[in-house]
């Protein structure tokens, strides 16, 4: 099987505009799904194009057209061509700069500090403190660590062997792209202001402290120590509270969260999956493991869903406002209410 490994930066704009032939577009789509780097770049292209589309159109003053007419009539033909070529080049350069700024220049710079070794921002080593701007990469080797101040909402420690990029640095959106390695985030802000994109999906801060590691293929682990993190991928969401973890995988997204102190047999069964695994999970679950069971409700088939519901109901009383029928139908309000009640046991 031929593996499509080349980065697709050059094709992203054409892919966005739907100008690629179908086989090439499929390759680009597949690559974006697997490559955090290109996924982040594609998101920048999307944002840049959205910004360009929002730019107001301005009518050129009549004097400009008059002067162009005068010039065209006065100059010899060959000179006119050169002037048009120069003007076109200038326009292209300006559009290019605007496009680059729209795509890469998303917000302010953040402070960075060296914690160990020789972390790199862009092509520069950080010896003490420095800055990182949207679009720039930070990279640490096996003996380097660094800190990034995330605006005024928190900080991120970048662990060894990590490659991470600042995507957006605005008051309403603080976004990193983690290509590989590990980060530890401490955020003190209302939910949904800090995001970390990976090849397996996006970690959405809900007011929390957590660590997130991933390899270049998007396989990794989210571990939450305070508050909540929502990990999302194509409509699939795992809500991970303090004391719990969740495996992530490319093209699969977030796994089922589990508490770190859950029985080993439950954790192994979660990793294995399958019918036999479900029996083990249900049998091994404690009251607190309703975190895992609640997530399973919406990820198993209807028959298995009944077993999961019955196990939760056996572990802890079903609260008022939650009916078996609504829960099995995956009524979103019912599940949300149930989760909030179950959280008192987590």
């Amino acid at each position, binding site marked *: 099987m031929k593996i499509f490994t080349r980065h697709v930066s050059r094709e992203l704009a054409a892919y966005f505009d739907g100008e690629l032939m179908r086989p090439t577009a499929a390759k680009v789509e597949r690559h974006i799904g697997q490559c955090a780097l290109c996924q982040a770049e594609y998101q920048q292209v999307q944002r840049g194009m959205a910004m360009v589309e929002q730019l107001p159109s301005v009518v050129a003053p009549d004097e400009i057209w008059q002067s162009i007419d005068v010039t065209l009539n006065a100059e010899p033909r060959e000179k006119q061509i050169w002037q048009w070529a120069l003007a076109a080049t200038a326009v292209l350069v300006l559009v290019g700069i605007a496009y680059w700024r729209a795509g890469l220049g998303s917000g302010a710079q953040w402070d960075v500090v060296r914690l160990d070794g020789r972390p790199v921002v862009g092509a520069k080593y950080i010896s003490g403190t420095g800055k990182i701007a949207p679009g720039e990469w930070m990279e640490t080797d096996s003996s380097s660590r660094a800190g990034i101040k995330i605006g005024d909402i928190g900080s991120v420690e970048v662990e060894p062997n990590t490659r991470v990029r600042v995507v957006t640095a605005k008051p309403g959106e603080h976004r990193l792209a983690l290509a590989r390695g590990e980060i530890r985030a401490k955020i003190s*802000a*209302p939910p949904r202001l800090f995001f970390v994109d990976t090849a397996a999906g996006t970690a959405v801060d*809900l007011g929390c402290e957590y660590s997130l590691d991933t390899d270049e293929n998007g396989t990794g682990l989210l571990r939450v120590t*305070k508050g*909540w993190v929502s990990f999302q991928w194509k409509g699939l969401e795992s809500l991970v509270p303090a004391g719990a973890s969740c495996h992530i995988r490319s093209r699969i997204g977030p796994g089922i969260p589990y508490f770190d102190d859950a029985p080993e047999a439950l954790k192994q069964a979660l990793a294995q999956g399958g019918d036999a695994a479900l029996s083990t999970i249900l049998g091994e679950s404690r009251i607190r493991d309703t975190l895992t069971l609640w997530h399973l409700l919406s990820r198993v088939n209807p028959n298995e869903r009944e077993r999961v519901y019955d196990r939760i109901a056996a572990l802890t009383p079903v609260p008022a406002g939650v009916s078996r029928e609504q829960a099995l139908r995956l009524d979103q309000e019912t599940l949300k209410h149930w989760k909030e009640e179950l*959280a*008192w046991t*987590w």
Partner: protein
Amino acid sequence: MLRLGLAASAAALLVVAEGFTFTIGSPVASQEFQMKSAAFVFRTEGCVEPAKAQIGGTAEGLVKGTRRSVVLKVATGARPGVYAVYQNWPAEGDWVVNLKGTCANASAGAVVPIGPKGFIRESSKFYSRPATDAEVETSLKTLAQGGNK
């Protein structure tokens, strides 16, 4: 008629008094990001007007053989009846949190041991009245002797 009304009111109060209690949970249960650093959170149950409940308590400790008592720092949540307890007692020694509350004419109490990894749910005691001094001392002694999970 007046007697009937009084009897009905008394019955209603009795129902409230029987149902008023505390539920404790980890900070994530509050669903409020501001409470993520609390030692634990709790909510009132069986209180018709939770916003009017009177809530307070103390942390009772045993530090190097000496009994200590610290008035609790309790924060009110955005949702009525949800509170957060922040650690304002010393890290040294053994401590239990003694919660007290009133709602209308009903009372509730809870004694929550604090272990090295945080509050100990399994060893917490809940009452439909404030805990007695003896109950607090027993819980503290059990904690100090390593009798809690």
